[in-house]
Structures are given as structure tokens and as C-alpha cells.
């Protein structure tokens, strides 16, 4: 596609008719949307609506069974390797080795992604973990673990952040501390799953609502009322 002007940049995420099944059970069906670079989409839906499946497809961990998915310009799964290293995932699990310290976990992650080790110190200080960074992850509280997991997700300066309830378990201090890493002004495009409708809407530029694997809402945030989102959970 020929570029026309400076304002033109490829969308961070472009899905068309994407579907995914687990055996016979269809988890996602006909998902179609495009997220511009640097923008945030809040994903809402009841349990089992397909949010985690969608996140894992965008992360390149699941391959779509139908439709086309382009993430950061790379078509999945054919060109998935082109997007690797440019995406940060914060899932249900912290993806940290419990017997290693925070620093050791982050160092491992940094080595896999070719990130300078000095960056770890910046992030650890920023989220307020400096005092506990040399303790094994299994000794940390859930809030501290969440902060460490956020560091891991943002360490390699990804262009796309996939966040599954990032503020869960965080106290207000923690929530503020992680803002510069994964918050709205941080820079990368964000796909944000949240169960807090108000807070999710406040963070987002676009809204994606899933019900039963299907796309029930896709609109800019200004066009979506809180009540509409609440209806997804009915």
C-alpha cells in the first residue's frame, strides 16, 4: 500500500472476520476492527465471551482459524515472527518464575529481547519495587507481583501492549506508579481488558464489546454509553 502523507501509519491491529474454535466450541466469530497506532481499545465482555482468546491471538500465541489478523503490519500466523519482540503481554498469569527474584526474571526477559540491563533498574525504581527486587517472586504479595509483571510486559518498549486487567490487585499508589509504563500517555497502542466499565471507558479511544464470541460493540468511545457496556454483562 503506497503511503500518502506523514499522518499515514499502518494500524497497530487490523482484524477481519477472525474466528477461533477450541474443538467444536467456537470461541470467537467474525471479529473485525482496526486499531490505529498509539490508540487504546477497551475490550468488554462477560466471562467466556472470548476476550482472553482474542488477546492471545493478537499476541501471536494462537493462530486464527478464520479470517485475517494483522498485528503491527505482520499477518498472523504467516509473518508472526516480524511482530515478535514488539508486543508486550500482561495476562492472567504474571509469567514470572516464582523461585527467581524480580531482577533475575527481568534480566532473563531482557536477554531474550536484547534489552540493555540498565533499563531494568529504571523500571524497577519507577514502579516502586527497588526494595524488593532481589527477593523471589513467590514471596511477593499479589500487588507487588503485578507490578513486576507490568515491568516485564513493558521492558522491551513494545509498540503494542496487550493488558488483561492491569490494575487488578494494585493499590492506588501502585496504579499511579505503573501509569508511565502502561498508561494512556505511554505511547504504544493498547488493547485493554477491563471489568471496570467506567475506568475502562475513561482510558480508551475505542470500545470493543464481545458477547458469546461475537462482536457486539465496535465504536469510538464517545459514541458508547455506559449502559450499553453494562448490557454486555446481562
Amino acid at each position: 500500500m503506497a503511503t500518502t502523507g506523514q499522518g499515514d501509519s499502518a494500524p497497530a491491529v487490523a482484524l477481519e472476520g477472525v474466528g477461533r474454535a477450541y474443538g467444536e466450541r467456537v470461541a470467537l466469530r467474525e471479529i473485525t476492527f482496526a486499531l490505529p497506532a498509539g490508540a487504546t481499545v477497551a475490550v468488554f465482555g462477560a466471562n467466556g465471551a472470548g476476550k482472553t482468546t482474542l488477546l492471545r491471538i493478537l499476541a501471536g500465541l494462537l493462530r486464527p482459524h478464520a479470517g485475517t489478523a494483522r498485528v503491527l503490519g505482520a499477518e498472523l500466523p504467516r509473518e508472526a515472527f516480524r511482530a515478535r519482540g514488539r508486543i508486550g503481554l500482561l495476562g492472567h498469569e504474571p509469567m514470572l518464575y516464582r523461585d527467581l527474584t524480580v531482577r533475575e526474571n527481568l534480566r532473563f526477559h531482557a536477554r531474550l529481547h536484547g534489552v540493555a540491563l540498565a533499563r531494568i533498574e529504571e523500571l524497577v525504581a519507577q514502579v516502586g519495587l527497588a526494595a524488593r527486587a532481589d527477593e523471589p517472586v513467590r514471596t511477593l504479595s499479589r500487588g507487588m507481583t503485578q507490578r513486576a509483571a507490568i515491568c516485564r510486559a513493558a521492558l522491551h518498549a513494545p509498540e503494542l501492549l496487550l493488558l488483561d486487567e492491569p490494575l487488578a490487585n494494585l493499590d492506588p499508589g501502585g496504579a499511579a506508579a505503573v501509569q508511565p509504563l502502561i498508561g494512556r500517555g505511554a505511547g504504544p497502542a493498547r488493547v485493554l481488558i477491563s471489568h471496570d466499565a467506567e475506568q475502562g471507558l475513561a482510558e480508551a479511544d475505542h470500545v470493543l464489546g464481545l458477547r458469546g464470541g461475537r462482536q457486539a460493540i465496535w465504536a469510538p468511545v464517545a459514541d458508547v454509553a455506559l449502559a450499553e457496556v453494562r448490557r454486555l454483562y446481562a
Partner: protein
Amino acid sequence: MTFGRGLRALSIASAVLITGAFALVFFYAPNDADQGFIQKIFYVHVPMAIVTLCGFVAGGIYGIKHLRSGDRADDLRSYVAIHISLILAVGVLITGSIWARAAWGHWWVWDEPTLVSFLIVFLLYACYQPLRFSIEDPERQARYASVFAIVAGAFVPLNFMAVRMAESLTHPRVLSTTGGAMPGDMRLTFLVALVGMACLFVTLWKYELASKSASIQLRSLKRRLAGDDGLAPLARSAAPQQL
């Protein structure tokens, strides 16, 4: 997807060849001087063994095809080939055991490298279906099964080589026939038995493929009629249930 092409011709060919082989065994092939009539089990045992091994290797080849193409039909072919070969392998072990008993007086002989290799191969492939069953996600199940089929298929020749080397110097083959060259009437009977067994394998393979693919297609039609939630979910199974 039709798997049933040529099934009638194959069935008839198998029936003819097997009957012919039996006739030859009973009326044409010579009686062995040492072992007597029971030696003729060789005409069942060895062709079955050869066909079984080829079946396992074929399972591995279809495993490679499945991994390369992602076509689940290849996984079905691999599954059925291994499945039938496993049943035949039991037959090989039983006929080998009967033969050993008749020739040597024991129900099992460690000196016979083919039999020993077969036991090891059988123990390995006996894990194929439990492995499949223990993986719930059908795509992953098919992929892991293909990996297993490939590794196990490569293992078969290595295993035979190693076992034969281990036994060859110390013990003579117990269950050999004429130590190499086969007289003409034995050779003819053997070849007919071999081709008949191979035909039988391919016929059974195609039958099972046709049957399974028919059930799969039937189910997908039912789903389309009843809607996604209209049917009871499939029970876990080692066999492929989707194409």
C-alpha cells in the same frame, strides 16, 4: 472427502489373495523337516510382521505430511495406519510366540531378534492412543500425535538394527526357515501371503478411513442443522473427530 474409492476391488483382491495363500500353505508348501506342520505359521507371522512395520512407517510419513500441510485428513490417515498396525502387531507377537513354543518349547525366546524388536516397538506404539487421549485440544492432539508418529517411525529401523546386532553373534536365529535361500514353492507361497496381507491392510485402512470420515461429516451436518448448541458435546477421544 471420499476415502472409499476402489474399496470393492480391494476387498475382492484381498479375499482372493488370502484364500489363495491359505490354499497354497495347506496344499503346496513343503513341510519342514524339523518343526513339522507348525512351521507353516511362518506364512502368517512374517508377512504380518512386514506389513505391520510398513504400516508404522506409513503412519510416520503421514505424520510428516500433516505437519507440513496442516491437513487433518493426513492426521486421520496416520492414526488409522498406526491403529491397524498395532492390532496386527499383537497378532505378530502371538503367532511368534506360538511358533517359538512349537520350535523351541518356550512361549518366548529372547534369542529371536525380530520378535524382541517387535515387543519393544509394540510397547512404544501402545502409548500412541493414550498420548492422544490425554491431550484435549484436537489441533494440538493431532500435532503431537504426528510428532510421535514421526519419531516412532524413525525408531523402528534403528531398533531392529540394534537388537539384531546384540543377538547375532551369540545366538543363532531360532525361528529361521532355511537360513537364507527359500526353495521355489516356499517362495511362491510366501509372496502370495505377503501380497495378500498387504492388500488386507490397505483394505482395512480404507474401510476405517471411510467410516470415520463419514461419521465426522455426519456430525458436522448435524451441527449445521441443530445449531452450535443443539448437539451434545463430543466425548474426549483418541481418534480424530474433526477434519
